[in-house]
């Protein structure tokens, strides 16, 4: 199912696309690749650094506000990245309130302000938006490592810092790599954030070839190239860790947090609050201010409907996607050959494709199938069926699954690495059937991973735009559709209301899933 859309995109490679390629190569391609490369490296490194450190502190150390931060640091996940981007620009741009105030106090010549419309600016915004992927997964890893690993580290004569770098960090690698891959794929697929900054990336070229030069073929070819790049990255990452084993020998006791005291504790509190402030509070406050200005005029009965649609779609998509991911992980476990592994990788690659391109890749085969079905019905039974699949929620759910399989696969796959062969053998020795092993042995171990996956998919579907726009049935508008409607014309005040609703609606499942992971 997932192969078909990706295949549809890749099949464009064999269709000549005229002179669009030549033009790109002659003019902008080199610059785009450099931009994309630095953005990818910057966001991956930044997200990993921020995500892992915050995960470590909240999972293992005790400092003021730890309980609060452990879930609050996930909140930025509920804010679409381009919203963070717009707020950041709105506040820190030359014409924004911060710089304007500084100019008023210090005079226009006396002060210097870093240019937010820069490569670093885009990277910072994306790191703030995407670090929770790493945070959520890495935290899950550190929590499930239990205290045994740290005890072992201490018995080997390592201090805490060494224990972290020599033991805990390498052991958490599948999780960290998984989270970073998600952030990276999200970065490569992003269009909204870079568009707000007018920072040209590979995605920009894809959209330009399609929307401005009317060549969907050239756009798909560029997208195929993107698939190849991502595939290469995945393979390299896999090679690096293929010879490692990550299993705990037994379910270990919950770690007792290391108490931090004095300035260290407060430093970490400050670090966590700073991240939370810039990644979540500031955007939400700005959105809130905008939303209040329009709430009376814009808020109506329909918002309940948008909200209901968003929640319903997200819940179903999370359920479906996690189930499929679980099946995939099991398939790869049962037949660990390279063909299965390859198939699994390909099926998660939809996440790195720009949404609109993927939406078309999904839509074309479905429309074709629909046409074929109605043709058959006409010929065999002489009835006019109209469109059967298209315009139903089935299409939407398949599309979401195609896009977000990577998001659910990563945490579940990482969790699966904890289930060793010896666990299975022990279960068999105890006379448990395959099903009983799954329910009583595997699922408890996988629980954290599954809930993490569900939370991620849920929030991602809430925010998703291009696929929702393309595949929704008539009248099935969601909060993100509403945001699209308002932002296309740059009306941010009006977009703020659905955006705030979306953020608030995304919070509840996040907190719920987080609590499930903890317990």
């Amino acid at each position, binding site marked *: 199912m997932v192969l078909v859309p990706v295949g549809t995109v890749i099949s464009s490679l064999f269709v000549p696309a005229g002179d669009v390629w030549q033009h790109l190569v002659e003019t902008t391609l080199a610059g785009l690749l450099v931009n994309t490369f630095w953005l990818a490296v910057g966001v991956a490194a930044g997200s990993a650094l921020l995500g892992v450190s915050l995960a470590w502190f909240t999972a293992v150390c005790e400092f003021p506000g730890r309980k609060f931060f452990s879930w609050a640091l996930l909140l930025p996940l509920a804010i679409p990245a381009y919203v963070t981007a717009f707020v950041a620009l709105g506040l820190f741009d030359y014409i924004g309130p911060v710089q304007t105030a500084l100019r008023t106090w210090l005079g226009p010549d006396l002060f210097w302000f870093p240019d937010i419309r820069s490569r670093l600016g885009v990277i910072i915004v994306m790191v703030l938006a995407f670090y929770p992927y790493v945070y959520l997964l890495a935290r899950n890893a550190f929590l499930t490592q239990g205290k045994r690993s740290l005890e072992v580290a201490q018995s080997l004569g390592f201090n805490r810092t060494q224990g972290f770098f020599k033991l805990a960090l390498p052991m958490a690698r599948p999780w960290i790599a998984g989270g970073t891959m998600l952030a990276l794929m999200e970065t490569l697929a992003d269009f909204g954030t870079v*568009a707000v900054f007018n920072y040209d990336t590979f995605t920009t070229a894809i959209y330009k070839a399609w929307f401005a030069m009317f060549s969907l073929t050239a756009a798909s070819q560029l997208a195929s190239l993107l698939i190849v790049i991502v595939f290469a990255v995945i393979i390299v990452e896999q090679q690096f860790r293929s010879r490692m084993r990550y299993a705990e020998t037994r379910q270990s006791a919950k770690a007792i947090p290391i108490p931090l005291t004095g300035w260290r504790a407060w430093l970490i509190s400050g670090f966590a609050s700073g991240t939370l402030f810039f990644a979540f509070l500031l955007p939400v406050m700005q959105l809130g201010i905008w939303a209040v200005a329009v709430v009376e005029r814009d808020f109506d009965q329909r918002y309940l409907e948008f909200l209901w649609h968003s929640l319903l779609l997200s819940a179903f998509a999370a359920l479906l996607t996690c189930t499929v991911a679980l099946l995939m992980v099991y398939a790869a476990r049962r037949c660990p050959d390279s063909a299965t592994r390859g198939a699994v990788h390909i099926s998660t690659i939809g996440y790195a494709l720009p949404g609109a391109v993927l939406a078309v890749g999904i839509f074309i085969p479905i429309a074709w199938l629909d046409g074929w079905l109605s043709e058959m019905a006409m010929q065999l039974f002489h009835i006019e069926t109209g469109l059967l699949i298209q315009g139903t929620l089935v299409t939407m759910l398949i599309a979401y699954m195609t896009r977000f399989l990577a998001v659910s696969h990563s945490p579940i796959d990482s969790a699966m690495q904890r289930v060793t062969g010896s666990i299975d053998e022990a279960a068999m020795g105890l006379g448990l059937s395959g099903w009983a092993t799954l329910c009583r042995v595997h699922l408890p171990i996988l629980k954290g991973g599954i809930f993490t996956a569900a939370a991620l998919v849920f929030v991602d579907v809430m925010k998703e735009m*291009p696929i929702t726009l393309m595949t929704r049935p008539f009248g099935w508008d969601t909060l993100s559709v509403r945001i699209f409607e308002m932002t296309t*014309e740059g009306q941010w005040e009006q977009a703020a209301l659905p955006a705030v609703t979306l953020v608030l609606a995304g919070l509840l499942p996040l907190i719920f899933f987080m609590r499930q992971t903890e317990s």
Partner: protein
Amino acid sequence: MTAIFCFAIFFGPSASHAEQVVVYSARIEQLIKPMFDAFTKDTGINVKFVTDKEGPLLARLKAEGKNTPADMLITSDAGNLWEAAQEGLLRPVESKTLQANVPAYLHDPRNQWFGLSVRARTIIYNTQKVKPSDLSTYEALAEPQWKGRLCLRTSKKVYNQSLVAMMIAEHGAARTEEIIKGWVANLAIDPLSDETKAMEFVAAGRCDVTIANSYYYGRLMQKNPALPLAIFWPNQEGSGVHVNISGAGITKYAHNVPAATRLLEFLSSEEAQNLFADVNMEYPVNPRVKPDPAVAAWGTFKQNTINVTTAGELQAEAVKLMDRAGYR
């Protein structure tokens, strides 16, 4: 899975037999729904619609082929309508009403699509730093006197692409490329992602002039009347102000051509044109309809009357030209 299918059947498209027109619209809901509501009130015909960007809507129409549920396509620029006609997605509409309501330069010569509102692209300047007498044409903004004083929206926006396409039609590619290079050389800051921001930069004195659609200016001034900004209508001695349209065509495989034609005619009628122009401070296409008073206050101007089809025909070339000139 079974549950999902049951669910889908339950919530899926229902076969309704009331008369209706199905519209794929790239013009966003709040700028199109008032017109649909008025149409339904007048005729009893329901309008079902989805909104999306032009590119995905065209791809969708094409993929659906003759199974498409869509009767009508609405876009917010001429280029995509031209492209839809090129791809064979639209059908000609013979209608005396439309011919009378929509001037020839604002519809397709083969009548496959019609403009419904006019979007005028104009020059906005800082009233404290620029005198209207300093300004003349789009082309003149490439001259050295504007060095470091120009702000522009990104070349990725279709409004700039069609402006440049029209310039190619008028001056040829070589001369146009020189002009665009001149613009780029005069930029005070890198191109911005939206027009409102560009105008705010002008108002803040970071730059002195920008090019923007007049309704963006209208919206900004409504919110913040104190800004030191004003409109200048360029190219009045020559070919006139560049205009684009938002417009519509009837799809080739429309199920309900008569109702769709009625809707299209209604949208060009005086009743709908008043709404069209007022909800977004655009200009009506129908010459018998006056613009909104707030819009009329910006003064009258001469429009460029090259057929807007040109914007579509030359769009791809314009994009390449801007890439070569380094206009991001």
